[in-house]
């Protein structure tokens, strides 16, 4: 196309000089242009097949194909995160706009490999399996847009899940190089392991301007409420181990501690609890005879006795989740998966997704200082409560912890709820497990109100063609003082409704008066009930044995003093 364009553009200038063979020239020119057009057309209609082959080849694509970007040392570094940032100060809401679906659009930057001037990558792991999974999930979701101009939220493809594998300064420079960075406005970073030795900050140390942080392990001092999102630390075991859901109920052990790296002071405290309460506590540690690596992650030991991890978690009612160097612990995820109630001892820790999840119903939070009282505190919790928490714990894992996709979607939904608060998911939607959603009854008229008589009621009378009976109903009901309006639904296509006050005689009506006694009628109604119940998936009707009567109904009392004397006198 380019070539033909060039050629033809030169054309007009040549024409005057070419007196002979001009015809051939014009024909050539014309055919070239025509060919160009056809080629263009082909290009227009072929792309589908081109794309599909491209897609096919995409499946075999490698991260090493991503463009290599060298970061000059002098490149700017973003400012450290601003602690006062809130949605109304650091977030550009105009980018999200008003849309009927009330859904934000999320753009993912294409993958690039950043290296410093010496060619050393800014991250030791590069794109991790988990971050790749997260980005794929976003890209497959309804939040995703490939149109950078329409995006409300930007997700860099720079993996900062684990600060330990990052070179902080270079990572920050890489962020600042993103084409739409704009002081980090509307950018979302995911980080699960923040901080580093010796003091382990509770938020990612990479300077990031105004970017939002979805972080695992925030403390109340680093978490910007209503701006950041507190996320779990994903447990890689989730993908490898399948733990079948267990019915809530009492377990073999009462309290279990499975973490391997517990501060010695706390381990001593736990040992003391174990001494006092014996078998009810199981205090596990690393197996000393196993080599490091995957195998050791799947085993725990107590005095030479080897237990499978995380399976052993299912054998306990409560499982301890103690802070380590960091506040966020991957153990929390394992514990929830096992349907074990987490006992969280991590002062100032912002629990994952605490903006929407009601952790009171799924966990016990105990101040670190009260570790010695843990046993007494847990013993005071009623059994029914423990069972509900076990169920709730497992549900939280299923819905919000089980995969990087679950974590990513929950994060985006939380941000979405902030931007479109009037379309936000409700407490019940977030917190009720499916079984509760199924069983619970939430009346649309939930406010306890006893309406006054004054607005009265509207009577709706369905009629076919039994005019006499209709008029009888109308006459009777219009005597009621509270009647505000009477609506007759004429349910007969063959006849038009009677006009005015005219009375109709209906001799054939009597023939069907005995309708309700008809056997087939009953059978039909039974069938209806069965059909409806199957559509509802359950029988919503409830049986009661009471009936509402006026207070003095059938009492030995002068009728004229009763408010509703005629009831039951038919």
């Amino acid at each position, binding site marked *: 196309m380019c070539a033909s*364009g060039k050629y033809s553009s030169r054309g*007009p200038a040549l024409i005057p000089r070419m007196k002979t063979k*001009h015809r051939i020239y*014009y024909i050539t020119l014309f055919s070239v*242009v*025509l060919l*160009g057009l056809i080629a*263009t057309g082909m290009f227009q209609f072929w*792309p589908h097949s081109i794309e599909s082959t*491209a897609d096919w080849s*995409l*499946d075999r694509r*490698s*991260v090493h*194909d991503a*463009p290599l970007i060298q970061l000059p040392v002098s490149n700017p570094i973003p400012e450290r995160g601003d602690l006062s940032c809130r949605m*109304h100060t650091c977030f550009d809401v105009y980018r999200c706009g008003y849309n009927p679906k009330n859904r934000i659009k999320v753009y993912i930057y294409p993958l690039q490999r950043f290296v410093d001037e010496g060619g050393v990558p800014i991250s030791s792991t590069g794109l991790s399996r*988990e*971050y*790749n999974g997260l*980005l*794929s999930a976003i*890209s*497959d979701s309804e939040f995703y847009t490939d149109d950078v101009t329409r995006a409300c939220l930007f997700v860099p493809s720079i993996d900062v*899940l*684990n600060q330990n594998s990052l070179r902080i300064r270079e990572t920050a420079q890489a962020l600042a190089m993103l084409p739409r960075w704009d002081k980090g406005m509307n950018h979302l970073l995911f980080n699960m392991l923040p901080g580093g030795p010796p003091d382990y900050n509770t938020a990612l140390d990479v300077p990031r301007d105004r970017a939002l942080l979805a972080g695992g392990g925030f403390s109340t001092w680093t978490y910007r409420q209503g701006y950041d999102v507190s996320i779990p630390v994903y447990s890689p075991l989730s993908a490898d181990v399948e733990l079948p859901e267990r019915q809530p109920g009492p377990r073999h052990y009462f309290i279990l501690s499975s973490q*391997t*790296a517990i501060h010695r002071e*706390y381990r001593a405290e736990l040992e003391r609890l174990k001494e006092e309460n014996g078998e009810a506590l199981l205090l596990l540690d690393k197996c000393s005879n196993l080599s490091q690596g995957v195998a*050791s992650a799947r085993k725990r030991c107590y005095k030479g006795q080897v237990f499978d991890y995380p399976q052993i978690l299912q054998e306990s009612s409560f499982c301890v989740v103690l802070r380590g160097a960091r506040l966020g612990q*991957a153990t929390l995820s394992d514990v929830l998966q096992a349907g074990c109630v987490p006992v969280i001892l991590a*002062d100032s820790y912002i629990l994952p997704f605490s903006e929407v999840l009601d952790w009171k119903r799924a966990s016990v*939070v*105990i*101040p*670190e200082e009260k570790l010695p009282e843990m046993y007494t*505190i847990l013993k*005071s919790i*009623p059994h029914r*409560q423990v069972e509900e928490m076990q169920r709730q714990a497992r549900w939280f894992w299923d819905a919000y912890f089980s995969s990087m996709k679950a974590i990513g979607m929950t994060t985006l939904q939380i941000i979405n*709820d902030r931007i479109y*608060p*009037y379309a936000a998911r409700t*407490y*019940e939607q977030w917190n009720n497990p499916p079984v509760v959603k199924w*069983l*619970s*009854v939430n009346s*649309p008229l*939930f406010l306890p109100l006893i309406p*006054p008589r004054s607005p009265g009621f509207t009577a709706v009378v369905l009629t076919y063609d039994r005019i006499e009976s209709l008029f009888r109903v109308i006459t009777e009901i219009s005597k009621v003082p509270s009647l505000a309006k009477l609506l007759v639904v004429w349910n007969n296509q063959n006849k038009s409704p009677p006009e005015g006050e005219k009375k109709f005689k209906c001799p054939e009506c009597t023939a069907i008066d005995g309708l309700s006694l008809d056997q087939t009628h009953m059978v039909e109604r039974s069938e209806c009930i069965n059909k409806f119940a199957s559509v509802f998936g359950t029988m919503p009707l409830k049986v009661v*044995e*009471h*009936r509402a*009567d006026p*207070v*003095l*109904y059938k*009492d*030995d009392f002068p009728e004229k003093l009763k408010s509703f004397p005629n009831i039951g006198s038919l």
Partner: protein
Amino acid sequence: MQAKKRYLFLLSAGACLVLLFYFGGVQLPASGRNRHDRSHNGYRPDQPWPHFSDPLQQFLPWDQLDTEEYNIHISPRQKRDVNTSVYKGKRCRMDSCFDFSACKKNDFKVYVYPQQKGEKISESYQNILSTIEGSRFYTTDPGQACLFILSLDTLDRDSLSPQYVHNLKTKVQNLHLWNNGRNHLIFNLYSGTWPDYTEDLGFDIGQAMLAKASISTENFRPNFDVSIPLFSKEHPRTGGDRGYLKYNSIPPFRKYMLVFKGKRYLTGIGSDTRNALYHVHNQEDVVLLTTCKHGKDWQKHKDARCDKDNAEYDKYDYREMLHNSTFCLVPRGRRLGSFRFLEALQAACVPVMLSNGWELPFSEIINWNTAAVIGDERLLLQIPSTVRSIHQDKILALRQQTQFLWEAYFSSMEKIVLTTLEIIQDRVLQQESRSTLMWNSHPGGLFALPQYSAHLGDFPFYYATLGIKPYPKFTAVIHAVTPLVSQSQPILKLLVAVAKSPYCAQIIVLWNCDKPLPAKHRWPATSVPVIVIEGENKVMSSRFLPYETIVTDAVLSLDEDTVLSTTEVDFAFTVWQSFPERLVGYPARSHFWDSNKERWGYTSKWTNDYSMVLTGAAIYHRYYHFLYTNFLPASLKGMVDQLANCEDILMNFLVSAVTKLPPIKVTQKKQYKETMMGQSSRASRWADPDHFAQRQTCMNKFASWFGGMPLVHSQMRLDPVLFKDQVSILRKKYRDIERL
């Protein structure tokens, strides 16, 4: 000719070129830009995230955490101490600025400094203090206290205000319990002044917590401060008006969609939003009115729109709009919060918030998305389309929730103050704190006490929400006050009748008689366990103590001389299962307003309605034992004990205050009506001429403590489905009720 041809060719070539450019040059980049950018290795930047085929590393190497966690040498205790010393002032949190050790185990007591002579205190602050002093949290012993409240008026810290207290700094520093504000709570409604209205209180609050109105998210210290609503001087101290919603209308639309009427500031802080409101005003269903007429020299500052706005402003009546609008705009004023918020809430007009950065009242516990529309000042012009897009079902829910929240937390000063204290108590007692559901659903956090149980299923309020049912048995509690002398005493008959009920789990006899306990063999043999508890103080209120032996959800409360048949009990219990949060009883009583005496009256006459059932024979949830004992003030319980009367009235007041609904009366055998209540001991009690007068007095005393009359009338009695119907008695399940 040739030239013509030439031009023709040129023209067509040109046309072709144009076409070529059109398809190739313009459209191609638009639709297939990505394809063009594609580099040789097939990498396409703007496409969905690719599926990489290479094995990627895990973000968390297996050994990282183990090695890292072992690296920490600093003791956790030291780490906590470091936090305490580092996070001060604006970064205060409960973990760093609050001394939990001052709060005795499971006890949250509040100390109020004694009032200094000559120190002027505004009426509002006086009300706050007296509310705390009248609450169950109050202690006069600072050694017992977990929280301290100043007797110095800090409500109005606008230095231009006449209420402003000077020299607060020195006054506070001189308090010997001040301890740099640790465990202190400071109430504040106004801070800063014209022109910048800062949120500074004008004195060093040290490590004290703030319960402040109009607080911004920027200054708000989460889980440390409490955001309270701005309320006026006229806000009632107790009780307070109910919400204006009397009945639900469907569809829920009102005359106006969105209204606002208020001042416009023209310039300075907070003026932008109100200045722009006229863009959205449409004179029809969106009526947003502002006036420039306020302050002395408004004429000086007025702009081109003022006269027009002022004229429009006078055309509408604020009250009329408030009550006839679906949504009410609540834009920020000079400060973030405004009176409009509570006004709209009470009027069941769904507030549409336009106050960026305002930490909404009680945001720690209230999920405001269920009762308000949180708008963004930057998107003012979108507000009409936003509110119009809200579905009717949602409007209906939002409106009801405004009423629930208003009555639960805002309708009186007392509720605002108690809610503030309960929020702090929840933080302090962690294990005994309310879940979000308890705060945000009926009957609300002030009536749902977490000290009773952490399990939602133990309360009578959440069965439907959780999709569960109460335990299908009851515990009978018989209040015995006369010695056991004969085997034909009514209490023994009653015991046998109740024990026969298949729903009876156990019977507790509360021995409140001065004579010693009868020997075990004197009690009849029953199929259910009979537990005899000796009342410690033998007082009336002890019949409503939350005995640990009561393991069922339902309690059947009985007087010793009550005459009941097994069938009557069975039927009442099945009714209670449908209404587990209400009182279900047999004989009923009623209250009325005696306009001659200007007081509440009590009647036991047979009337067409009732508002109380006697607790000498009633079924209710065991939670009400806990609530009666722990929620009601000692003054009312003391009155009951002293009179040995009115305990049933108080219980009815309590349950109706919680449920906002009347009790339920069920059928009883008619011929026993006269004798059911009142033989032996009871007779003496009821025969007392003072008895009736006392009950009148009780009613009025109770109503004044509740801040209004919580009782609700009902005209309904629940009878068995075939009751007195003309069918064979053999077909009736509860036939004994009809038999003479």
